């Protein structure tokens, strides 16, 4: 009996590794072929990398929301991507108002004021929505079997998306152009799009801020305690409900901020724009090891760079036409690979296989 079980296990492990190994081999062959063909110049690779860093910063900020909530409630807040969409979507109307009042005319001071107001407003909207979501949809289900909150979150995600579509229209809305963020800066002799610099710097500042918050403040420590063991934390005098609300608050605010950065980069909002970044950010959180703050940040940057580089680096060499079409597919292949080879993520405890 035991013998048979052992044989079965090894059979599945072997086939898993075989699938993983085959994919890895393809990746290596593709990379070597692309690099040896010399189709792209070094500056192009650099450009892609910096683009990836900016994208990665945004993923990292969203991923933190997933990781914080997962760490505490052990649930995937599927609607987090839509929280990310809601902030900048609502702030669009503020941006239009500023634009009508001629704030984006080229005066740097006025533009900065407008951007700060937009940022604060977006963070506020996302935060309020995240807290409402927790209060209405998740709190009553805290003791329910695990699939139930997940299904609720999926429902909430679709509800939010299509409520926004119904309320504010289905068309793509273009954010006004901000003149201080257009054009290039030359840093260390490299021409970098200004917006990318701003996004990367802002994302890193917020990530560091969050790290300090979680590690140093009393509330942050309470969050860690709750994620370790809710009941014991409650016995120690921590108000668990309050900590959970704060977790959603922090996650929502970061998502709102990430949303504004994303919108400044791509300059448009739609009701559906949170879906893909949300999934990617979740992938990033898993990459880094879900439940782990540093891991989420690293995972975000890694995924951003991978997504930016890999289509050209891997697929081009294999002679696949239009590799950018497979960008999203690559992100998910990466997710599956990580879960096969290192379910714990880059840094993190072994959760994927642990008793759910």
């Amino acid at each position, binding site marked *: 009996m035991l013998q048979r079980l052992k044989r079965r296990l090894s059979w599945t492990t072997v086939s898993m590794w075989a699938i993983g190994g085959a994919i890895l081999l393809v990746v290596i062959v593709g990379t070597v072929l692309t690099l040896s063909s010399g189709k792209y110049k070094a500056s192009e690779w650099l450009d892609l990398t910096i683009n990836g860093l900016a994208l990665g910063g945004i993923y990292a900020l969203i991923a933190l929301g997933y990781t914080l909530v997962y760490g505490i409630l052990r649930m995937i807040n599927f609607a987090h991507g839509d929280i990310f969409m809601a902030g900048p979507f609502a702030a669009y109307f503020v941006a239009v108002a500023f634009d009508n009042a001629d704030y984006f005319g080229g005066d740097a001071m006025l533009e900065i004021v407008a951007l700060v107001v937009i940022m604060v407003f977006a963070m506020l909207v996302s935060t309020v929505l995240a807290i409402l979501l927790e209060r209405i949809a998740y709190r009553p289900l805290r003791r329910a079997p695990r699939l139930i909150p997940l299904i609720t979150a999926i*429902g909430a995600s679709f509800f939010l998306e299509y409520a926004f579509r119904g309320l504010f229209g289905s068309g793509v809305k273009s954010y006004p152009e901000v003149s201080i963020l257009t054009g290039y800066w030359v840093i260390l002799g490299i021409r970098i799009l200004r917006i990318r610099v701003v996004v990367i710097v802002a994302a890193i500042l917020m990530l560091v801020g969050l790290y300090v918050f979680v590690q140093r403040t009393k509330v942050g420590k309470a969050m860690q305690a709750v994620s370790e063991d809710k009941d014991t934390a409650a016995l120690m005098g921590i108000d668990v409900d309050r900590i959970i609300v704060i977790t959603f608050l922090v996650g929502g605010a970061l998502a709102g901020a990430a949303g504004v950065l994303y919108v400044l980069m791509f300059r448009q909002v739609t009701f559906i724009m949170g879906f893909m970044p949300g999934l990617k950010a979740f992938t990033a959180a898993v990459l880094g090891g879900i439940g782990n703050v540093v891991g989420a940040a690293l995972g975000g940057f890694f995924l951003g760079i991978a997504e930016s580089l890999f289509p050209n680096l891997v697929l081009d060499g294999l002679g696949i036409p239009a590799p950018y079409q497979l960008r999203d597919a690559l992100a998910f292949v990466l997710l599956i690979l990580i879960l096969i080879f290192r379910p714990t993520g880059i840094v993190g405890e072994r959760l994927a296989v642990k008793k759910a």
Partner: protein
Amino acid sequence: MNERPRFDWLSAIKIGLLGGGVALFLCLVGLIEASDRRPIIPGVLSMGQTLLLLTLVLFAYLAVRQAKANQENVPRAWLVLSGTLVGLMTNAFLAALVLIGGWIDLRAVFVNASPALYDILTLGLGTGLGLIVLLLIGAVVGAAIGATLSLAESYQRAILLGLGLIPIIAILNSALFAGRGVSILGAILILLVTAVSSLLWSRYQDRVKERIEALPPRQHRSLAFGVRWILPAAVVLSFPILGAYPSEVMNEVGRFLLMGLGLNIVVGFAGLLDLGYVAFFAIGAYTMGVLTSPEMTWLPFHLTFWEALPFAMIMSVLSGFILGIPVLGMRGDYLAIVTLGFGEIIQRLAISDWLKPYIGGSNGITLIPKAAIGPIRFDSPQTIYYLFLAGCVLAAFISQRVKFSRLGRAWMALREDEDVAEAMGIDLVRTKLMAFATGAAFAGLSGAIFASKLASIYPHSFHLLISINVLCLIIVGGIGNIPGVIVGALFLVGLPEILREFAEYRLLMYGAALVMMMLLRPEGLLPEARRRLELHEEMGAGD
């Protein structure tokens, strides 16, 4: 200690605020205006107004029930009062919307806050008179609900049933048979007939049941057989007589029902949350398309529908295995996300230029031949109906038989506790793979029929939303229970198919339905007895 009963203002006001919020949301999201074109009683009542009325009725009902539950022997006047209050508050929100909208143009933000909407809300009577009428309607409807609920139970049921049937019949008439709702006379007739028959039934049901029980066993058995098998079979088999459009609606239901039965095995029986289920449907459809379409010139041969069908199912099953192996060790949420990723990968591959020479890329595959048996060609909605029907019957039969087999019991053990199941000697690897493979086979079958039905397939038919749709219907219907899945498919696929004007709001309603369902009735509309116990036990005791 006899405290004097007090009217519970607070809970009535709370419910009133909620009702107002919901009514406002329905207006601003555009549902009311979109559904206003469909008449329920022409000249009197439109679908949009019916929706608002239903909101009124619902919240007034909740308030009155709350008032009844709070204390015993509530004075009848209080019930009427709380109904009136809630009705008034609900419509006051709408009145406020009309007032504010008349003052500043809200359309810069809310695209649906249009004069047309205000016109509907004020019944075309202009702002002054219209608002008064609007508030009056709220108060009257609320009061009427309060009064109705203070009657005896059998009268309550008779009135609510009669009123509820009017819009249902009107919608069916206008949607399926291109009619225009029901006339005033018709509406009164429906109300009277249903109310009277409901009253008669509640008075005489015991006697009827006694009479049936008293029949000789042979007759009793044949009656039961007739009611349980022959009647439904006759209805289902003769459905295409109704015409092309109703058959088309049923084909959509059948397509999703077939997928629902498959996903029910994976999620409902084995408890593996698969969010990428559409992938198997896509693989079935694409296999059918590639093997049969003469467009696919890279293949040296082309098969007929029946020859390709087994291959379509085999390919789906194989992909079920391929997905199954890497996710064997994962549980719960991780499984959900990885399967979702799998679905996305398949769709991205289908749309990519890379595979375009083989599967058509974004142009899809066209010229897929229809199925045929001898002289009978399955080329109209009425005939394709039988293909889906056969598939669904087969899938339902297999599900029902497997459910209580050794494998089915292993799945359920797995669902309840993986570790215990393993300790009991259940082979996890085999059991899980079998679940994925069986589920994938049904989806592949559905996809293959779908491809032949449309004669062409495009990558955008295989969006993630299909997976969500299927998941939704099994959850709302009653996960793990086959009649539940059927009810879910009829409600969540058939209904939006009939109410075309709601197409845009389909996902909004799905989202709301999922959340409400999980909060209020996680076991679904027609739950499996065992699942219900499981859920309520766990909900009560915690985990």
